[in-house]
């Protein structure tokens, strides 16, 4: 049985792995090393033999605690290889001038987290990665690159199509389909070409669901977050949507 996590949420609740992850870990713990190694190398998520990254994190930590250095290092290299593929998709060259450095830094920092596991003030930081690896890795990566990305949000301008501008919200909250994946792929690239102010307005209003502005001065809106008037937010949304209409024409 997998060792329980010790990290707590801000509300004091202890984090728990999803049930399916617990089941995969329990099954993996019964395998001998050659069989486990073989399964760890499977990278097709559709395969029945695929071990999710949450499971690999658990196995690496266990191998580390049990002083099985070879197993630990081989599994860690496999996990880092998967993360490298994720980084190539989420932070490709061109998204930021120093994207290669940022990818390296994220991978290296993840490696260091395993070295620090069980020590220091944040001894159970890797617990997050056993709950939802991709989200935790996104947090780590985004935290690392936040400052750089802010500085690099100096992009080119684009025009008006409310339907396109609002579609990200619809797609993100609906089941994955081939059509949606294609749309998201192109949309993601298009959004990254928007100037930061327009991009933020688009994300705040159409993905996160903030109101553009409000008569209630106490209400948090896209306008209050960005420190501008509601009219400015609407102008930014209009410009962003217009630019994204070019993207629609390319679909």
């Amino acid at each position, binding site marked *: 049985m997998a060792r329980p996590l010790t990290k707590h949420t801000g509300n004091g609740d202890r984090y728990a792995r999803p049930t399916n992850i617990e089941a995969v870990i329990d099954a993996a713990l019964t395998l001998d090393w050659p069989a486990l190694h073989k399964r760890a190398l*499977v990278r097709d998520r559709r395969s029945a033999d695929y071990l999710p990254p949450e499971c690999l994190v658990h196995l690496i930590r266990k191998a580390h605690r049990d002083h099985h250095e070879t197993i630990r290092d081989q599994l860690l290299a496999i996990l880092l290889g998967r993360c490298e593929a994720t980084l190539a*998709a*989420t932070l490709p060259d061109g998204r930021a001038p120093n994207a290669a450095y940022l990818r390296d830094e994220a991978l290296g920092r993840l490696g260091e987290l395993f070295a620090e596991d069980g020590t220091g003030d944040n001894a159970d930081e890797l617990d997050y990665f056993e709950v939802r690896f991709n989200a935790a890795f996104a947090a780590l990566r985004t935290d690392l690159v936040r400052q750089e990305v802010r500085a690099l949000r100096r992009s080119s301008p684009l025009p008006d199509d409310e339907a396109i501008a609002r579609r990200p919200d619809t797609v993100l909250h609906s089941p994955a389909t081939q059509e949606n994946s294609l749309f998201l792929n192109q949309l993601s690239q298009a959004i990254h070409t928007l100037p930061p102010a327009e991009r933020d307005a688009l994300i*705040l209003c159409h993905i996160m669901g903030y109101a553009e502005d409000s008569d209630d001065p106490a209400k948090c809106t896209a306008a209050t977050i960005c420190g501008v008037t509601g009219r400015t937010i609407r102008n930014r949304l209009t410009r962003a949507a217009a630019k994204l209409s070019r993207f629609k024409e390319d679909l």
Partner: protein
Amino acid sequence: MTSTPPRSPTPLRNVLYEFALAKPVPDAALVDEFVRHYPEYASELTEYAIELALDAIAARNEPVDKPSAVTAPSVSRAMSRFHNRLHAVRKGTDAETANAAPAVENPFAKLTRDAIRALAQGLHANTVFVMKLRDRHISLETMTEGFLRRIADELEVRLENIVAYFAAPAYIQSSAHFKAETKPEAGEKQTFEEAVRSCGLTPEQQNSLLNL
């Protein structure tokens, strides 16, 4: 009059993890909840939420991982950082000191030409294969544990030392000559099987190594 000590603030990174795990795609309600809870990080959380939302778009679009036959140099560098940091944690020193120090000892460094030949013989391989091992051109994660134990025995070093050595990035001999003005960067590593197959070993030698 006694003053109550200020509450120890939750580190920003932990707040970001918690935020990231709360919902697949952050929304206004989640941001508001976290900002109320951690007002000191209000701007970071909002900014981060935007990044996560963008990230969610990219992540939903991630292709299915394709199997990779080689170890990327960035993975080797990350493994190196892992070992350096581990060394620092165990020694109780900080990461900077560890990064500057050679944490991983080269078990091949003291081998003479004859010793290399003897090692090749002991492994039932040849010197080309040993050179690939020495220069870390073979990815650690594709080596079998049996092979790692065998080479640790042959070199008379601890298993963890040999593992740490192979986990580091590929090595380019400093004495090598290059046509380019700058020293080239080490490239991707071969898999264990690729290395075995491409060193001019006999089928018997190949089988012997692959079955360790």
